């Protein structure tokens, strides 16, 4: 080959703007508007890379997304491990090198080009700005009611004929989805954009891809698709070679010959299959130097040439259409599949993509030869006609199976050059009719794109997933909190001081709650205001116990079940007024519980006069607990009488604390005297600071979990797993079957939910007071011998080291557990069984003497 830049021509380059780039360590120059492929051809670079399996030299083969041959790694300006040279727009400072068909991710990969996403809504989206595309855009522009028209093309620039039509250059469509939703990839200079376009109508004007013919050494640099030769001359002013052989089955090469001739090249031979001639082989070491021809009578001739332009016919570019369900039919004249007119009514396929204007062709797939082992069908997969025949010989009949056996069509070009060839070679080998099997299916993304573009800006700790924080988060950070993820929330797990580790901090925080005073940020609790004359009736149907008779000013704990009778969520209901409750949910239950409320109200009981409003983030909640809790609240200042006599357990009072309005609730999740301060989220930070300044020790979720477990209080989702009834938890007392129907009621009297051997919540203690069981530990009834454990009876749901009890303890779900209190169970140790004892789940202050202080 001897590619060179022509003195003129090239309607896509700007000769006034020279661009310097580096390839394989050598400096070159190109022009604005070049692709890396056109610039390499202009600089006479024949070999771009080696083939992945056989290590054969490979050069530029096409001028577009169908490129199966010339692959590069781009290092500057942005890292891309592997991309076809035909898809790299030349930019200043570009640094690339050849890559054998497989990309390599370095251990410490450089930054990829940034990506963003963007949404657009248009009346008409035209994909492809060739003749058919630009005509469609013009037509749409002229039609009434279609003001928003977007035309996209992968060209570096183009202009729509009408000034009102918006254009996106350097853009490829990746997929078309239901109802005109189309995803596009725009390759920008500083960043890429993944467009999500909602279009009223989509016009596919994606043109057609030329297909090759296989012959010996058809992968040698210099062998190219015929149309690509003309495009490099016309678009980039680059002549890939001086002496060309054109190998064709159709009339489209006549124009190629004209273009090459007028650019100064010599047409060494036009080898027309229809005249009985074919190319037997390309010859040369690293690029074409001669071509061996075979005539109708078997006569051979060798001609000197440095490029071979091949045209085995044209395939409509229907990858996008196929994925949205457009049907295909085989067209005998074109010897390929074309859209059959079916598909979504909002989708229109025009021009060559519909098969219009493509040249009739002979069906000719490869030049016959004894040795077919260099007749390449899929260049990137290094697969030949022989490999296809071997697969058929091996018993594979379906093109889909041949694809999976050979990997033909699975490379970056997704079978654009190899698909039809492979299908027809298989059909032929099986004695089936032309087109009996079509090419394999296509699916989005129909053009590869970097993961970094898919990710967009949703990367890194802040943006991969939202981090939700409470109004006091800043204070927690200042206090050195170690956070844990609870859903998307960051909650302080513990507040280590100095050199404390988790165990030290946990012990200190627990002791503070049990002996002095401490504070927990409970703001993440879900909160819903339930308002209306039927609010009480509604809540009676949602919870297992009665809520309609809670007095205004009082609070009641409640369990909520699924209709299968299993515990779904828990929380308290505060009656704010005759027709108004505020109910709390677990942190994770906030949205599901509100959804459930709305579902039952809207679908089952529309006659109930109830409205639900989420107020989860309206309120910051600070639980002040411990024997000194009332002292803390008095210190920060309140107008509420905190004495147990006037402010009893499970009531709430309205007043002020620390100078701001507050609802104070006498509820406790630790067993100690506690005041839950509900203040406006605006005041959460202020009140938290005040509580800590008054001497309360901040404690986190870890201490909260431990303290509640000492009291045998459950955590939904930790001690329950969707298979646990209230009775299983020993909470039969909270189920009120006499109050009327409630969600889950009927399931509680199914034989299975009444089985005496259901897993029940119990306490478990180890004989060795220092041994901490892992949560999830399986329990067995007998110690067993050797490798045979006794039958499984349950598992540990919560396990802690209690500073108050001076020992470890656990909660567990154990078959018929309540009957086994005092009995032995075992778990399997590393070398021998570990003996345990089943105990009552309430291990601390069984008489509830501490909750009033």
């Amino acid at each position, binding site marked *: 080959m001897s590619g060179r830049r022509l003195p003129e021509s090239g309607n896509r380059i700007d000769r006034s703007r020279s661009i310097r780039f580096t390839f394989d360590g050598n400096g070159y120059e190109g022009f604005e508007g070049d692709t890396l492929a056109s610039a390499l051809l202009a600089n006479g670079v024949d070999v771009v890379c080696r083939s992945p399996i056989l290590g054969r030299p490979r050069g530029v083969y096409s001028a577009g997304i169908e490129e199966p041959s010339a692959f590069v790694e781009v290092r500057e300006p942005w890292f891309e491990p592997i991309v076809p040279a035909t898809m790299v727009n030349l930019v200043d400072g570009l640094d690339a090198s050849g890559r054998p068909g497989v990309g390599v991710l370095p251990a410490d990969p450089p930054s990829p080009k*940034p*990506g*963003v*996403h*963007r*949404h*657009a*809504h248009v009346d008409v989206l035209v994909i492809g700005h060739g003749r058919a595309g630009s005509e469609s855009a013009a037509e749409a522009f002229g039609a009434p009611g279609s*003001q*928003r028209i977007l035309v996209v093309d992968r060209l570096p620039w183009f202009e729509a004929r009408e000034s009102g039509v918006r254009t996106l250059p350097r853009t490829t469509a990746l997929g078309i989805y239901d109802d005109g939703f189309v995803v596009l990839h725009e390759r920008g200079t*500083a*960043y890429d954009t993944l467009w*999500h376009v*909602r279009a009223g109508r989509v016009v596919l004007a994606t043109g057609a891809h030329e297909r090759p013919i296989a012959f010996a050494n058809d992968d040698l640099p210099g062998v190219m698709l015929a149309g690509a030769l003309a495009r490099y001359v016309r678009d980039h002013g680059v002549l890939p070679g001086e002496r060309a052989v054109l190998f064709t089955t159709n009339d489209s090469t006549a124009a190629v010959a004209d273009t090459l001739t007028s650019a100064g090249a010599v047409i060494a031979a036009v080898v027309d299959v229809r005249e009985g001639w074919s190319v037997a082989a390309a010859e040369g070491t690293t690029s074409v130097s001669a071509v061996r021809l075979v005539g109708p009578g078997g006569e051979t001739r060798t001609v000197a040439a440095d490029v071979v332009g091949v045209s085995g016919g044209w395939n409509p570019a229907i990858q996008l259409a196929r994925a949205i369900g457009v049907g295909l039919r085989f067209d005998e004249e074109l010897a390929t599949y074309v859209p059959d007119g079916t598909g979504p009514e909002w989708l229109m396929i025009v021009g060559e993509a519909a098969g219009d204007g493509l040249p009739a062709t002979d069906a000719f797939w490869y030049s016959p030869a004894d040795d077919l082992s260099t007749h390449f069908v899929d260049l990137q997969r290094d697969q030949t006609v022989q490999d296809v025949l071997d697969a058929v010989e091996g018993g594979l009949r379906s093109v889909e199976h041949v694809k999976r056996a050979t990997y033909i069509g699975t490379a970056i070009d997704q079978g654009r050059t190899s698909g039809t060839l492979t299908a027809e070679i298989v059909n032929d080998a099986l004695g089936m009719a032309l087109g009996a099997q079509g090419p394999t299916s296509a699916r989005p993304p129909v053009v590869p794109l970097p993961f970094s573009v898919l990710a967009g*800006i*949703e990367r890194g700790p*802040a*943006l991969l*997933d*939202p*981090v*939700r*924080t*409470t*109004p006091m988060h800043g204070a927690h950070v200042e206090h050195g909190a170690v956070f844990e993820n609870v859903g*998307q*929330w960051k909650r302080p797990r513990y507040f280590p001081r100095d050199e404390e580790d988790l165990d030290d901090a946990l012990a200190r925080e627990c002791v503070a709650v049990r002996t002095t005073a401490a504070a927990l940020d409970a703001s993440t609790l879900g909160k819903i*205001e339930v*308002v*209306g*004359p039927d609010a009480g009736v509604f809540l009676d149907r949602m919870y297992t116990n009665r809520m309609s008779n809670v007095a205004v000013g009082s609070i009641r704990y409640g369990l909520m079940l699924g209709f299968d009778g299993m515990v779904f969520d828990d929380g308290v209901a505060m009656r704010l007024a005759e027709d108004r409750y505020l109910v709390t949910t677990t942190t994770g239950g906030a949205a599901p519980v509100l959804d459930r409320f709305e579902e039952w109200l809207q679908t089952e009981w529309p006659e109930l*006069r109830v*409205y639900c*409003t*989420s*107020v*989860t*983030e*309206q*309120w910051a909640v600070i639980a002040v607990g411990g024997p000194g809790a009332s002292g803390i609240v008095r210190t920060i200042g309140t107008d509420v009488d905190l004495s147990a006599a006037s402010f009893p357990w499970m009531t709430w009072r309205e007043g002020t604390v*620390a*100078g*701001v*309005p507050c609802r104070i609730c006498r509820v406790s999740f630790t067993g100690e005297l506690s005041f839950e301060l509900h203040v*406006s*989220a*605006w*005041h*959460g*930070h*202020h009140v938290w600071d005040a509580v800590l300044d008054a001497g309360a020790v901040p404690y986190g979720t870890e201490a909260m979990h431990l303290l509640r477990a000492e009291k045998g209080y459950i955590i939904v989702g930790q001690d329950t797993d969707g298979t646990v009834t209230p009775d299983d938890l020993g909470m039969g007392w909270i189920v009120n079957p006499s109050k009327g129907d409630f969600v889950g009621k009927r399931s509680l009297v199914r034989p299975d939910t009444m089985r005496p051997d259901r897993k029940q919540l119990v306490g478990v203690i180890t004989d060795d007071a220092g041994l901490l069981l892992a949560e999830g530990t399986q329990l067995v009834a007998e110690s067993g011998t050797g490798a045979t454990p006794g039958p499984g009876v349950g598992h540990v749901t919560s396990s802690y080291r209690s500073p108050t009890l001076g020992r470890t303890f656990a909660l567990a779900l154990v078959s018929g557990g309540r009957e086994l209190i005092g009995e032995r169970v075992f778990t399997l140790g590393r070398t021998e069984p570990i003996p345990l004892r089943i105990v009552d789940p309430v291990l601390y202050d069984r008489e509830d003497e501490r909750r009033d202080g």
Partner: protein
Amino acid sequence: MTAEVLARSPLQDRSDDLAAVAGELVPFLAQVDLRVDPAHAELAPYPLPLEANTAWHDRDRSVLWLGPDEWLVLSSGGSAQAVVHELTTAFGGTHHSVVDVSANRVALALTGDDRVDLLSHVCPIDLDPRAWGPGRCAQTMLGRAQVILFERNGSTPILVRPSFADYVVDLLREVRRVTGDVGA
């Protein structure tokens, strides 16, 4: 100190980042959620928009349509208590729900001329002038956060749960960082 002085907005330390996206904090906006059968809309002290995703504004009150029987009433100068009072008085014996949700969402406003372009990177709804403009409102997503948007006086206020407020500012800031500070 009064309660007002002790209040704190989750975005009060983010003014630089807000400025970088041509945004500003709307501190302590009074917000009240109203639920009532639209058949009783005429009882309201101001027009309740009945067309989906539309809003009514006057000098110091805004009413955003959130659903067939739900509206969000905003008061730029006044207190939530005043709004609660005027709504409960207006609907009297009719079944309704009025809940102060002022702290349930933080308000920020984008004021740049290119704010629709900025939002189009993280918001899927149609913000083209044909579909969006003064008098419009919507409940939608910015990235992965639920928000309420509306359009008024050359700015686009965003109401977002306080726990997601930093995320939304980070998100808009990152769009600007990648796409360039043009127009900010």
